[in-house]
């Protein structure tokens, strides 16, 4: 039996198909995954993301610690509540995990890391934190909900006390704020607007039911995966891991070399890679033939072979889409070995879908 979130019993009651995900028993769908996907693109859906690990980092040198720990620059965080997406690298420039950091104040930052990497992340972070005297606290007392879709924020706001409602609706993109017992952030993993809410574990179930009653559809990890892939958002363990660096994983935008004095872990390795020129690039693919692209399929190009890192059927486009790591000189057309057949695919600009709109012609 895997670990359970505070919402486990509710998922079972709602008829979810439960699967193992990074050691957790999580809902993959509650019926039709495609309907859950469309609900998020067109209206609002709710996901249990309580398996993700919330870590509070406190101490007078917490900003220094984070500038060392992650490849993006926390100097970008100057307004309380603002969030930063980054990778945490090893000395070789490989990705230990991707994470979100919320700046609360100069002695308190909140970090959210992936569920499946929780133990190794904490061990690594504690090791890096020790010289800075930063204390890391795992917030296992919190549940976490992601409410996503064009109508998600309005539906959540209806549940908030009046004094918090306008504040929540005024949150900027990629910013959060503590509102009573809830930490509400305008973040997500779907390509839609919405909130992620960290709240006391016991409050998660009544909030879920209240949102269901307002028409917010329960959505599982299956829809979460098709939504994030349409939005061309990376999934740790599929699209990057400790053997891959952010520059060849479509994550160069999350690495900041701006401050030459900032010696973040992995910087030297990435600088020498930059100097020699990355050999691979990370691309988005649309399958032109019939079939479905999947992770680990071989991409065949005149410049050499590559690999699909994530692939699926896009419910919004009704075509198969994928992310892939391919040779640097790959052109606009590739072929993919799908179960022994070479199928044609086209390199396109990511993302595929954003805010309900298909962006790929």
């Amino acid at each position: 039996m895997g670990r359970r979130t505070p919402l486990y019993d509710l998922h079972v009651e709602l008829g979810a198909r439960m699967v193992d995900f990074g050691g957790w028993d999580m809902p993959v769908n509650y019926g039709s995954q495609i309907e859950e996907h469309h609900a998020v693109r067109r209206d609002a859906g709710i996901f249990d993301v309580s398996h993700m690990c919330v870590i509070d980092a406190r101490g007078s040198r917490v900003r220094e610690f984070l500038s060392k720990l992650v490849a993006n620059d926390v100097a970008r965080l100057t307004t309380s509540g603002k969030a930063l997406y980054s990778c945490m690298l090893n000395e070789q420039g490989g990705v230990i995990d991707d994470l979100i950091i919320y700046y609360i104040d100069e002695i308190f930052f909140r970090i959210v890391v992936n569920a499946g990497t929780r133990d190794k992340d904490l061990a690594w972070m504690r090791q890096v934190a020790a010289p800075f005297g930063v204390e890391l606290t795992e917030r296992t007392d919190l549940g976490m909900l992601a409410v996503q879709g064009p109508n998600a924020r309005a539906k959540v706001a209806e549940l908030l006390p009046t004094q918090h409602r306008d504040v929540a609706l005024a949150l900027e993109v990629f910013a959060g704020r503590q509102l009573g017992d809830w930490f509400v952030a305008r973040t997500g993993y779907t390509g839609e607007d919405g909130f992620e809410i960290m709240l006391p574990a016991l409050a998660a179930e009544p909030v879920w039911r209240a949102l269901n009653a307002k028409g917010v559809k329960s959505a599982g990890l299956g829809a979460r995966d098709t939504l994030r892939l349409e939005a061309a958002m990376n999934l740790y363990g599929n699209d990057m891991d400790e053997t891959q660096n952010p520059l060849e994983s479509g994550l160069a935008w999350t690495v900041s070399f701006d401050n030459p004095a900032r010696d973040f872990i992995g910087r030297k390795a990435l600088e020498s890679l930059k100097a020699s020129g990355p050999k691979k690039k990370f691309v988005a693919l649309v399958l032109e033939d019939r079939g479905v692209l999947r992770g680990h399929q071989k991409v065949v190009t005149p410049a050499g072979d590559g690999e699909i890192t994530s692939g699926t059927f896009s419910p919004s486009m009704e075509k198969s889409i994928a992310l892939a790591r391919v040779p640097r000189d790959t052109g606009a057309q590739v072929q993919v070995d799908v179960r022994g057949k070479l199928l044609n695919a086209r390199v396109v600009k990511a993302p595929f879908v954003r805010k309900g709109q298909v962006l790929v012609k």
Partner: protein
Amino acid sequence: MSNIPADLKYTKSHEWVRTLSNGNVEVGITDHAQGALGDLVFVDVPEAGKALKVGDAFAVVESVKAASDVYAPIAGSVIEGNAALGDQPELINSEPYGAGWIARFKLDGALPGLLSAAEYQAHLEAEG
């Protein structure tokens, strides 16, 4: 609980077999199998004339989650694949034992030993 019609035969790999009035057989995947796969988005049906032994993979069903082979429960040759699945793979979700059939076969010899509905039910329970 998944639906297991009493008049069909089954395999441990979750195919069903219906004997048609002309002696040919129709094959599909069970309600349990479609439920486990989730929404079907692509089906690669076999071409007419393809000869198969018991246990050969003859079709591929792909859901949003994963691809899965469908294995021949019988030895024989394909008479036709279900062309309707090209545009409507979801028929396997909505009518796994009806419009969602995958292929029809001409038997090569007699029908092999297959599971009855009760035996398939017991197999599902044993699989947990």
